[in-house]
């Protein structure tokens, strides 16, 4: 469906700075997140260099803590979340037949807050590494538990707090935009139960964002007043409790991990049917599973706090609720596998990433289930086993799904096919290295290696060596992606893509030309 009364796209710097176009803003989000992914990756390289051999190697322990902290914060808030928002921006209007996002100016504001917020966070890392006197960057872990972040937090903490407020404002506005777009801008005939799953998962993700980002804002606000105005929220001597911080943080934090994985479920649910050449198995059950995961995610937060000391009834409640979440998660995995069952499968790159996602995410889900068992978790907690768990779900889960999405929709975005050779190299190189990087972490974790230390006991030396090798390898592998992206986005080199790109893919986005014109669906399509 081509649009013939195409407006002229604004040009130059203004096009990007003042944009109200969902595709341009989507591209900004995606590039921003990729840059953050590379910066966060560099910090991880520092961590793995230090841990390559036992004993202190290159950085002092305090700087090491700053690295683990800022690596986590940048990856969560700067890489994964904005990447999915970028995807939402690009794809949701195309998928539901809308001319743009519902609130285009607010959309641009949501984006431009992020570079400002991360300028603050990244500058504290730079100052710590290179500035005069090396003022400390945040060094209390990405979970910024009190009192590490209140009584003992460095001066940069206050800047960090306000940058978290900015990220929160950005996420909330982005989420409001998604919800309103989905509820209000669907083309005629696009009923809720006809929406692509990616749209559904984002709708629910947006709800989670609006529900929990303000809670995070409340938590950092209490931190700020505890630090400077003498309040006692997280101070037992004044009648408060540091554990209160953990409750508030994880009330945000657990839904947050689903914020990072639900859109991934949507991506995979779009890709697998295309390359299995079969409709998605169990569409309605997917929708309900997503909804129940989201609701349950509000009542499992204290599984992060089993070791802190809680009444027995609380521990049991949170254990059972956590285990309950694996039921809808299992439904999803089952449906993906059932979609592939007896399909005529082909293994183009998006499909390879999607299958890798299904398998590796499941490994992460299973280790999550182990962590959900309270008595076991008291052993595993704060060990590398937890690190292995959440990197399987986040790196080979959320980030692999982003890669799948990029390879799947890149031809639609740029009009050219990705470079297949370097794409394959990127895939295989990442797949092997990610497992070398994270799988042995299960073993060292179970054997008792604690997380967030700059050094380790000698018996962990061999594993850590190989983990570090895996880390460097994974890091370098992402440069192949960088090349694939530069080639497609800027050099525009590659096979010209058709509107459909793949063989009979489902969805309105494939009815517009590739690259998608600046304005699409000015007159809404009719969906039968």
């Amino acid at each position, binding site marked *: 469906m081509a649009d013939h009364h195409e407006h002229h796209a604004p040009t130059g710097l203004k096009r990007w*700075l003042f944009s109200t176009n969902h595709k341009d803003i989507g591209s900004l989000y995606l590039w921003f997140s990729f840059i953050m992914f590379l910066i966060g990756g560099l910090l991880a390289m520092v961590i793995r260099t230090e841990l390559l051999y036992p004993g202190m190697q290159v950085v002092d322990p305090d700087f090491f803590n700053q690295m683990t902290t800022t690596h986590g914060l940048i990856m969560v808030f700067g890489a994964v979340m904005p990447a999915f928002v970028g995807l939402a921006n690009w794809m949701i209007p195309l998928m539901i037949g809308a001319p743009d996002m519902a609130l*285009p*100016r607010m959309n641009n504001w949501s984006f431009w807050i992020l570079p400002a917020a991360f300028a603050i966070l990244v500058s504290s890392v730079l100052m710590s590494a290179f500035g005069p006197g090396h003022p400390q960057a945040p060094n209390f872990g990405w979970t910024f538990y009190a009192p590490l972040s209140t009584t003992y937090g460095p*001066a940069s903490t206050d800047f960090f707090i306000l940058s978290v407020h900015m990220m929160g404002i950005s996420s909330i506005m982005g989420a*409001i935009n998604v919800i309103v777009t989905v509820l209000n*801008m669907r083309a005629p005939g696009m009923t809720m139960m006809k929406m692509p799953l990616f749209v559904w998962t984002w709708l629910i993700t947006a709800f989670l964002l609006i529900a929990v980002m303000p809670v995070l804002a409340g938590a950092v606000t209490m931190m700020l*007043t505890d630090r400077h*105005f003498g309040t006692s929220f997280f101070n037992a001597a004044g009648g408060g409790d540091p554990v209160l911080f953990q409750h508030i943080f994880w009330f945000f934090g657990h839904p947050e991990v689903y914020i990072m994985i639900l859109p991934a479920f949507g991506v995979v649910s779009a890709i697998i049917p295309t390359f299995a050449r079969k409709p998605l198995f169990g569409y309605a059950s997917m929708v309900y599973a997503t909804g129940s995961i989201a609701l349950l995610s509000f009542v499992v937060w204290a599984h992060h706090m089993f070791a802190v000391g809680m009444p027995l009834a609380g521990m049991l409640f949170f254990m059972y609720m956590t285990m309950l979440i694996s039921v809808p998660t299992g439904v999803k995995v089952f449906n993906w596998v059932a979609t592939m069952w007896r399909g005529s499968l082909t293994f183009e790159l998006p499909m390879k990433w999607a299958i890798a996602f299904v398998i590796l995410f499941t490994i992460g889900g299973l280790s999550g289930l182990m962590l959900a068992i309270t008595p076991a978790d008291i052993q595993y907690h704060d060990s590398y086993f937890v690190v292995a768990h959440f990197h399987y779900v986040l790196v080979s889960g959320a980030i692999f799904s982003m890669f799948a999405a990029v390879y799947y929709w890149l031809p639609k975005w740029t009009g050219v096919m990705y470079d297949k050779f370097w794409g394959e190299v990127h895939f295989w190189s990442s797949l092997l290295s990610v497992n070398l990087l994270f799988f042995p972490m299960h073993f060292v974790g179970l054997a008792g290696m604690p997380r967030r230390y700059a050094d380790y006991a000698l018996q962990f030396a061999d594993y850590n060596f190989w983990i570090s090798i895996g880390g460097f390898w994974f890091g370098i592998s992402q440069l192949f992606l960088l090349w694939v992206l530069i080639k497609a986005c800027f050099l525009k080199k590659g096979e010209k893509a058709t509107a459909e790109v793949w063989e009979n893919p489902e969805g309105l986005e494939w009815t517009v030309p590739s690259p998608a014109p600046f304005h699409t669906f000015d007159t809404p399509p009719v969906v039968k």
Partner: protein
Amino acid sequence: MAEKTTQYYVPESSPWPLMGSIGLLLLAVGGANFIQQHTDKVQNDGKLGGVILAIGVLWMIGVMFMWWRDTVKESLGGLHSHQMDRSYRQGMIWFIFSEVMFFGAFFGALFYTRWLIVPWLGGAGSNAMTHELLWPNFQAMWPLLVAPDGRTTAAMGAWGLPAINTAILLTSSITLTIAHHALLANQRGKVIAFQAATIVLAVIFLGLQALEYVHAYHMGLTIDAGIYGSLFFLMTGFHGAHVFLGTIFMIVTFLRVLKGHYTPENHFAWEAAAWYWHFVDVVWLFLFVAVYWL
């Protein structure tokens, strides 16, 4: 061109979002520096925090003015459709929901403190040894007048100023609703009268809240003497800040009523301000019960 109005209006590019981000950056950098330079928690020898913060505030006011001016122009120019009106309404509802969750964090902290932390510090449950070893003289009570480390404070009763303030806010919601009905019936004189009354009540409420703070400090109820004062001041303070914003919002829509911007069909901004007002009103009722009364 008749078709144009049935289409969704996608605005041309606009500088205000970017300017708004710069404003937030100024607020954050200025705010953090300002706080550090005026408290003694960390060493910050700079002097400019307050200046940057003030520039940020002015900047944001300017951006909001310009941004909304564009929106108002478009609305008066007939570019807004019903569908767009729905977008704005839904957007506002979800924004209010996010505010509810923000207050939720503080209410959560309040109940967790009252029902769990304070009793535990006093030895309840399996915490007899905690009590014995940390602060054996500590007595669990609410309001917590003596903190575990011995700092003392005072409690704010419910039936003086707070009760009067409750009555004021409730009345203001009623006057606002009357104004709303008048707006729908296109009775501009009545809208003006009752919205003006609402604004007057709002200002009185804010004045009395300020008076109550003065009173609190005279009684010895301070923000830095334990969890009761922390909760009291942050919860009522954030509520007051929201009332303040709501009042400004209300004044803006009032001026627009005077200019005749609203019709019974097209008055989203007016209604958004009204919703916001009802929201701060409801939050107050919960505050009155949970913070002052019980």
